[in-house]
């Protein structure tokens, strides 16, 4: 267990150290959200109607952008090979990375989402729903993303490939994520969406470390 904690601590330090990408990712998230009004016009009514979708798309894109750094740096400096030789199974290492990746790339987005909510003219209730749906849905995005990063780590120029592979698999997360916010079929549908979103996240987080570890091992052989 100490190995698990020390890997988490290492990842955390790397993410927040100089050259870490947390701030860049945050900036990207905010800019994507802020650029939409330029494309669709500053109509407040329209913006507040599509704001949840914009926030979700911005979060989704920010997630995809951060994927490549997940295993690539570890592969290049040899850390990944050491992880494979370590006592603890590789899936546990991946699980530690999944948790830290969520804390360093999803949690900050949720923390700055009030800013986006304000400039996109969201009302308070929608905003809280958005926060809940992001909290429930981003673990699934991170889990799928980790799997995609693991699959493409063996490819020299795999940076663009992971988002292409992962985006179709993330469609249910987006659907249920937005379903939590804007329940078209009435309020009971929001609960349904919430439960499905939570189920997706739990399943994906539980299974993805094993699939990702398998992909890393077979990719390196």
């Amino acid at each position, binding site marked *: 267990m100490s190995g698990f904690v020390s890997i988490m601590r290492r990842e955390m330090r790397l993410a927040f150290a100089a050259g870490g990408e947390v701030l860049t990712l945050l900036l990207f998230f905010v800019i994507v959200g802020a650029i939409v009004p330029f494309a669709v016009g500053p109509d407040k009514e329209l913006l507040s109607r599509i704001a949840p979708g914009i926030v979700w798309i911005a979060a989704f894109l920010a997630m995809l952008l951060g994927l490549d750094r997940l295993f690539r740096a570890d592969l290049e400096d040899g850390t990944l090979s050491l992880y494979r030789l370590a006592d603890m199974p590789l899936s546990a290492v991946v699980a530690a990375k999944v948790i830290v990746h969520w804390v360093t790339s999803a949690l900050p987005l949720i923390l700055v989402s009030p800013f986006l909510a304000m400039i996109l003219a969201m009302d308070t209730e929608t905003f809280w729903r958005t926060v809940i749906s992001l909290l429930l849905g981003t673990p699934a995005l991170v889990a799928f993303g980790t*799997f995609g990063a693991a*699959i*493409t780590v*063996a*490819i020299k*120029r*795999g940076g663009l*490939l992971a988002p*292409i*592979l992962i*985006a*179709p*698999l993330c*469609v*249910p997360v987006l*659907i*249920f994520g937005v*379903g939590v916010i804007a329940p*078209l*079929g009435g309020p009971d*549908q929001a609960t*349904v969406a919430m439960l*499905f979103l939570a189920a*997706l996240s739990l399943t994906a987080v539980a299974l993805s470390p094993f*699939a990702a570890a*398998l*992909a890393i091992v*077979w*990719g390196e*052989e």
Partner: protein
Amino acid sequence: MSIEDTPKMSWWNRLAHPGFFVQWTTPLVWPLAGITLALFALGVWYSFFNSPADYQMGDTVRIMYVHVPSAWLSQFMYGMMVVSALGTLVWRHPMADVSMKAAAPLGAVFTFMALFTGSLWGRPTWGTYWEWDGRMTSTLIMLFIYLGIIALWRAFDDKLKAARIVAIFTLVGAINVPIIKFSVDWWSTLHQPSSVLTAEGSKIAPELLTPLFIMLFAFTLLSITLQLISMQTEVKRRRVATLERKAARGEAA
């Protein structure tokens, strides 16, 4: 006659040899192609001359005889890929790699055909080329998954390594496809409660069903024939690559 004490190799193991595979399947290709052609001739004759036009949709209903088999094959080929992926991961069967690789472009083409004929059919009957209907949307995502798999194949230099990675992705995709299907249905039924497709499905007249079944068989046999041919091509392609490497080594030394 001497007593054999070595265990006899099963046909399954012998099939693992690429050379044997090509040797065994080559005689199959021509008869299969012949049956496919005959079925297509029959099916096309039925669908154009021996089946009534729909009382609502008119002659456009004949698009169904291409559309439905394509949609069926887009799922059939993914099933083929899943079985091959299991073959790669569980048995490390060499031909499973080849089968998985051959199935991906075929599946993508059939999925694209299902979407294309569907939108051609949708224009006169629904008045639109594209509708965010549950089935269409999940078929579109299916196409993206196929294209992603093809891109993944192309990204690797080492085909053996690629096979195992693609196999993992194919299996994860197979777990995901029902979830996607379900979520898209949930999502789009909220948007449009009644869909033209679901209302029509079960009420197909037997006169329309005969050509449909013939075309289904024809298309399925076509896909199997094409699968065998492209597997053989892949085996030969790998052989050529090996020979080229050998030749390059020989010249360098």
